């Protein structure tokens, strides 16, 4: 199972943060809006994609699970996660604690930031990387 990156072009206001964080996938057009070189995120870039999703100031970037043949897409949109963060207690299960990012995945070729910025931990560690 791989993940697919999508931009909501209505929400995107061209901050360009995503292209800084995920230059392997995202470049900017002459007006500063992101162009995805490929929508599918290779596993090695998964964490970086999640970080880009979490850091987008416009919440315009989202990561979707891609399941071959399955019609239903499961949104891993950061918006939902931020909403659940805004309501403490709603995501008590596994909230950050005990889940160290960057280690144990075997592809941490970049220093990952503190948990604060880690998008993949908001209450569902099971989602982490296929």
């Amino acid at each position, binding site marked *: 199972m791989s993940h697919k990156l999508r931009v*909501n*072009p*209505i*929400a*995107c*206001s*061209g901050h360009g943060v995503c292209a800084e964080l995920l230059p392997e996938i995202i470049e900017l*057009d*002459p*007006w*500063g*809006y992101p*162009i995805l070189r490929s929508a599918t995120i290779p596993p090695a870039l998964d964490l970086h994609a999640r970080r880009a999703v979490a850091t987008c100031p416009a919440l315009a970037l989202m990561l979707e699970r891609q399941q071959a043949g399955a019609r239903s*897409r499961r949104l891993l949109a950061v918006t939902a996660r931020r909403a659940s963060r805004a309501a403490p207690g709603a995501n008590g299960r596994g909230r950050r604690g005990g889940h160290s990012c960057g280690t144990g995945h075997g592809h941490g070729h970049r220093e990952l930031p503190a948990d604060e910025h880690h998008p993949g931990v908001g209450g569902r560690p099971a989602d982490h990387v296929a």
Partner: protein
Amino acid sequence: MTVTASPATLEGGAALPRLLAGRGHRLVLGLAEHEREYGTLWLRGRSGQRRPERLIDMVEAAGLTGRGGAGFPTGRKMRAVAGRGETVVVANGAEGEPASAKDRLLLTYLPHLVLDGITLAADAVGATEAHLCVHRRERDLTDGLAAAVGERRSAGLDPVPIQITGIPGRYVSSEQSSIVQYLNGGPGKPTFSPPRPHESGVRGRPTLVNNVETLAHVALIARHGDRWFRGAGLPSAPGSMLVTVDGAVRWPGVYEIELGTGAGEVVMLAGGPTEDLQALLIGGYFGAWLPVEVAWPVRMTQASLRAVGGALGAGIVIALPGSSCGLAETARVMRYLAEQGAGQCGPCVMGLPALAGAVADLAFQGGRGRGVDAVAALLPLIEGRGACRHPDGATQLARSAIRAFIADARWHDQCGPCDGVRRAPLLPIPGDEEEDWSWT
């Protein structure tokens, strides 16, 4: 533009007109005349036995595809919505294409055919709500439709009441997600999808959005069956369709043709060219220019037109005379399309004016050898990057113009504008006074 109906048949084909059968006299067809012309509508079959889903089977077997431009199989669309609780049916009569007149013709003169289709679709998908959307500026249209709906109400025809809604008259407001957003209380701009309307549409319910011509075909399929429908057109693209023919032809107007009719035959149907032609614009402002030698034999089906880089769109054929400048015509349309965006997505907001400017420079200033490349460089930066298909349609038109008029484009690029730019504009562009600029 005049609206005319005249019969056209492929060799050995079915008798046309079908939809336009009631257009013999230039009058609005009332309910009584409508039933006399097309036959009485039996919602559950003549004996009352037909299950509502039976209609979906028939539409699917008929191979009817959407006539609004996208050409999606109607039966599949209906099945995606059917049986999912309280659903909604929306008939899209907000003809956004300035060059198209077919939906307006149907709604003006043959309203009951469309209203029959709405009622049938609502019954088939178990809808509890039905809307018919037209541009709100077209008061004569909404008034006429309200009268037709009233006539049907007193006859007890529509179990689900049909509400007429006027939507903002902008180009992108006729896109299906815009209509759904407007019915939900929004400004009527395209929304980010998924979820698509059939998943979550009006008030979050599964919503079937169909073009009014598509629904008129449904009304005929319910009466005559899928085999009758397949009696016209090609096995791979069955049925008939309405086309709007304009430009350098003797009798511009709306005609009914079988799918698969050659584009040249369509021009001949409209009285033939009035001058030597250089190109046809097929599919309207979301379609493509095709050089006349390519376009003339091409069959009017989605697949045949795609194969030559064109699009069927909403069935528009505009004949461009040799004395006109295709680049100048395109430049005017591009400017219009750039202004008509919803102003939501960056690549469209920034890209379309830049593209329109590049095409206008090439057409009216000459490009100093760089104009063609400037246009070509912008296309990939815009395509596929909006929430709706507006930027894609605009880039398709620009790309096809460069391809179809490449010799002319090189001339403009090296030597400056040709004589054709001084000819009066051919393609219709609604003026500001006709436009409905506010969103709310």
